């Protein structure tokens, strides 16, 4: 019944590259790819020529050279005769340290602040709101400077602790010293030490290892004990009181291990110009940590607030009507739902904090940027290598954090739905 010509058999024509939806995409992509590769190639070519002209071909062997500078705040052994590579490692660990400390502190403060922000006490919630508005509308770099200068200007100098007419004194039974060079905390010491375990790059103290193993063992046993209690509860309805048993399971072996190794506390003491002994958190570390924490906290407060507010009022009313107490309502009903909103925002704040920790370079905290992108770069003149490495390391950290948190996020989501 059709009087139409049958459809023409199409053979490939050049114009199809432009007008055929199947090929058009390919044309565009090839064009884009060529453009992008072309410009990248051009840039790389320029870099190669320029570096060759300067006599600085891209090589990473400077990492093996002697660094010959000192770093005061460090998590692993390092001295000025070590290599630049090791200095970079010290810097990386310092970056991770301050990022970790910052994330923990900002999360704790942020959650508290977020809850206070929603408090029905007008004054408290206003105060938190004012805090948020002040701190997040001023650049974080300025906060870092302010924190750093607050410490150096307000905390006493070590020499104020000296002499008979000392103007400053140590806290907590002479075990903590707050100075404008940092805070000195008591350190754990062992009179029957077990030595160090050489892990190649750094040494791990065996005492610490033993303590960790004992602690994890205890926690694991306590969890098993809880699981047993749950089983019993499910079967009989009565839950055996596990509190004391758990405390014992965790604490007793720990105490035993501490006693066996001859644990005692080493207090910092003023010797010469500075306090000696104890764990030292240097002023730049504290300044950076405070600055990052105070700034990031505001964002976490907002995240927590919006998360909790995203759960409708009906949910808490329903829980109340069922007789759940406010605390339980929060932990069983509100938080599990609010976390869905909060966690993604937390991820990005953790990422931001980690990236912002690079501002360490402004106050002399020896993080990755100050070592690799600072002194090492300056003393060796390897800009290209140092900065590319710097970016690659940060990129890796970022990708790892977001991957880890996304994994957690999907887990939380799965539990919900």
């Amino acid at each position, binding site marked *: 019944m059709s009087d139409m010509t049958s459809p023409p058999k199409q053979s490939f024509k050049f114009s199809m590259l432009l007008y055929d939806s199947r090929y058009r995409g390919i044309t565009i992509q090839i064009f884009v790819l060529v453009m992008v590769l072309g410009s990248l190639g051009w840039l790389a070519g320029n870099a190669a020529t320029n570096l060759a002209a300067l006599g600085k071909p891209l090589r990473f062997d400077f990492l093996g050279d002697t660094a010959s500078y000192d770093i005061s705040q460090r998590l692993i052994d390092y001295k000025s005769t070590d290599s630049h590579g090791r200095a970079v490692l010290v810097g990386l660990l310092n970056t991770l340290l301050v990022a970790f400390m910052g994330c923990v502190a900002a999360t704790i403060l942020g959650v508290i602040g977020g809850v206070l922000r929603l408090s029905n006490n007008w004054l408290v919630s206003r105060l938190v709101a004012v805090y948020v508005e002040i701190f997040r509308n001023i650049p974080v770099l300025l906060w870092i400077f302010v924190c750093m200068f607050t410490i150096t200007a307000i905390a006493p100098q070590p020499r104020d602790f000296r002499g008979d007419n000392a103007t400053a004194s140590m806290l907590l039974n002479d075990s903590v010293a707050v100075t404008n060079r940092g805070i000195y905390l008591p350190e754990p010491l062992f009179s029957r030490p077990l030595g160090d375990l050489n892990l190649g790059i750094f040494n791990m103290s065996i005492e610490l290892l033993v303590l960790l193993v004992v602690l994890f063992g205890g926690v694991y046993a306590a969890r098993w004990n809880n699981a047993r209690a749950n089983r019993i*509860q499910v079967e009989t309805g009565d839950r055996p009181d596990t509190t004391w048993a758990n405390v014992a399971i965790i604490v007793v072996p720990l105490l035993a291990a501490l006693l066996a190794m001859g644990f005692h506390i080493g207090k910092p003491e003023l010797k010469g110009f500075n306090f000696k002994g104890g764990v030292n958190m240097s002023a730049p570390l504290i300044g950076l940590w405070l600055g990052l924490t105070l700034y990031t906290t505001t964002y976490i407060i907002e995240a927590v607030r919006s998360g909790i507010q995203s759960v409708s009022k009906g949910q808490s009313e*329903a829980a109340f009507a069922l007789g759940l107490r406010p605390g339980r309502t929060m932990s069983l*009903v509100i938080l599990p739902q609010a976390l869905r909103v909060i966690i993604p925002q937390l991820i990005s704040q953790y990422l931001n904090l980690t990236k912002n920790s690079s501002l360490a370079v402004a106050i002399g905290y020896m993080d990755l940027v100050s070592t690799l992108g600072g002194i090492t770069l300056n003393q060796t003149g390897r800009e290209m290598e140092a900065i590319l490495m710097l970016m690659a390391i940060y990129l890796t950290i970022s990708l790892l954090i977001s991957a880890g948190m996304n994994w957690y996020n999907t887990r939380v989501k799965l539990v919900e739905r």
Partner: protein
Amino acid sequence: MQVSKEVAIEIVNMNKWYGQFHVLRDINLTVHKGERIVIAGPSGSGKSTMIRCINRLEEHQQGSIIVDGTELTSDLKNIDKIRSEVGMCFQHFNLFPHLTILENCTLAPIWVRKVPKKEAEETAMHFLEKVKIPDQANKFPGQLSGGQQQRVAIARSLCMKPRIMLFDEPTSALDPEMIKEVLDTMIELAEEGMTMLCVTHEMGFARQVANRVIFMDQGQIVEQNEPEEFFNNPKSERTKLFLSQILGH
């Protein structure tokens, strides 16, 4: 239908304001154990507010509310006690979306009544069967239809084995078919002798189940009576007007 002489809820001269707005005015109401009361009235007349005061989701400012012999004050212990005895079924269900149906039902018994989980689950399944959705127990609220959700909400409050149930327009958001299902469930409960306060405009339900119908307007109880009397022979002008609208509709 037996109504005992014991008093379940007693509200005396209760007044409540929202800011300057006088929502509830001189409410006096005595509910006996086993009584089933339907509350009707135009929108905004304070029906929800009144029943929310009974389990202290709202605070009243004057007068007293005594539930099961315990007076509602700001004493937290009393509030907890009363809330665990009074079940409430919300207009919008307010199911917990992150928990399965079964978990929704066992949450309060386990944490408030400290019932062993197994027992709590058995009770929950019992009530889910009663509302005819035992097979949905492991789904999440979002996966159920409106009528099913409403029934879960009823089951959830029943799992606490409350002595008193408050229903706030349990059918307003449902289509006719589902309304019937939900009301059937409630009628069944009623027949077991539970004390019930139900805000509803389903007059069929009121006729069939209620001992008493209360009509509210402008925050006050305007008329109360047995259903027959109430519907056939309303006394106040306001009630007459309202009934003419509802019945004609």
